[in-house]
């Protein structure tokens, strides 16, 4: 009996200690401001990789999609963006719904963009400048130059979290992709009467539909 109590105490202490160090590490990493050039280099690498991938005509569409998914996971705070996009409904979802949502969200983003790969027509990607605010968050201003067209200004927002620098938002000509997604999802959940499962079914159907186009 005593032994069991002792073991229990040990486990508890261990759990507290682990969670304390975990939290300390997290607090530390959360506050690390970005170093000059860090965000800029990352966005530049991402842009170059995307242009290389898109302009490579040898690659098949599924292979392009696969590479794009890899780039997306590597550079974006995908989970954070997914949570933001769902807004207050995230907190109301249970574990299984969240799990299903995160998988669907990634598929949704990947396939939405994969459906646009065919539109690529020799655009070039130019990094203009970078700024870091007092919180240590970075914005990188870039320009996508279409041959013979007007340049499109794209601003990337980056943040460091849990030891990794990630993109949290992309603003195209003043329009935030994350915010737009959030408006879309909020309205869709409302249409579903606030029923998360119904919304997830709709999202799944949407992903299937977009996949059909991307092929």
């Amino acid at each position, binding site marked *: 009996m005593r032994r069991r109590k002792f073991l229990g105490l040990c486990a508890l202490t261990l759990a507290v200690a682990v969670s304390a160090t*975990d939290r300390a590490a*997290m607090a530390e990493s*959360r506050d690390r401001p970005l170093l000059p050039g860090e965000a800029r280099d990352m966005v530049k690498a991402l842009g170059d990789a995307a242009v290389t991938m898109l302009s490579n005509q040898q690659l098949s569409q599924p292979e392009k999609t696969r590479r794009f998914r890899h780039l997306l*996971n590597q550079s974006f*705070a*995908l*989970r*954070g963006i997914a*949570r*933001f996009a769902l*807004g*207050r409904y*995230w907190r109301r979802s249970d*574990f299984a719904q*969240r*799990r299903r949502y*995160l*998988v669907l969200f*990634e598929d949704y983003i990947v396939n*939405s963009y994969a*459906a*646009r790969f065919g*539109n690529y027509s020799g655009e070039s990607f130019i990094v203009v400048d970078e*700024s870091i*605010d007092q919180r240590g*968050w970075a*914005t990188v201003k870039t*320009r996508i*130059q279409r*041959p*013979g067209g*007007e*340049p499109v200004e794209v601003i990337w*927002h980056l*943040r460091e*979290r*849990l030891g990794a620098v990630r993109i*949290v*938002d992309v*603003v195209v*000509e*003043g*329009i*935030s992709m*994350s*915010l*737009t997604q*959030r*408006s*879309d*999802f*909020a*309205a*869709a959940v409302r*249409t579903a009467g606030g029923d998360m499962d119904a919304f997830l079914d*709709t*999202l799944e159907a949407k992903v299937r*539909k*977009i996949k059909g*186009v991307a092929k």
Partner: protein
Amino acid sequence: MREHFMTVRNSAKLALAGVIALAALTGCATPPPASDKEAMAAFNEDNDPLEPLNRYFFEVNRGIDHLLLRPVSEIYRGALPEGVRNSVRSVVNNLETPGIFVHDILQGEVERASDSFGRFTTNTVFGPAGLNDIAAGDNPKNPDAGIPFHGEDTGQTLAVWGAGPGPYLMLPFYGPSNVRDTLGMAINFYINPINYIVPNEHRTGFATARTVVKGIDTRSRSIETFDDIERGSIDFYATVRSLYRQYRASQIANGRGPKNPLPEMSEELEEDNGAERVSSVRK
């Protein structure tokens, strides 16, 4: 011609009466219960009390776009080479520039006013007649050379003066707007000095023609973009509403918007993610 004005005015009145009647019939968006603070905040953020009516006109506009605007834009794009279409846009932009100049002044934007003045004189004289956007000096090697076009309108000036947007409105034919921008659109006609150089009886026609040409040209340049947005969105209406709001906010800020457009996003991203390591991100 005067008679024509009267009929235009009368039909506008009739349309307004029709809209009010329809609003009464379709009703307003039902606000969520006051106890649900988050739902209430979202409702206020949408600022769309006429949502059912707006959604109705959104579908009407999509129908018009499908039957008329989009096909015409496709023909326009297919029939005219790019150089000609760029000239069309350049001429229309040039004719709007005196009005934009007035708005730059009204907003206290000295540098932008001088940009507009320089653009108008350069493109009118050397364009010539605005046929080429010489002032922009489009050079793919150095996009910072020259002065690019920027738009302004009464809605933006009113916003700079402190007017809020008011409820969101989906106008028949014109598309997304809000109370302030709709009012601005009505006033804008009187502000552009270019309207006063044509005889009184041709003024409305002149302004309408510019709006129509600009509409077709703009639509022809966004066919694929809008297809993508429509395909990607679950609630196309809500997506367009969000896009319009952000687009206007960015226009009003003249590119000096807040550094981080998502102040509330920090909260979501800062929250401890450790509890939900269910990501598909991890392979």
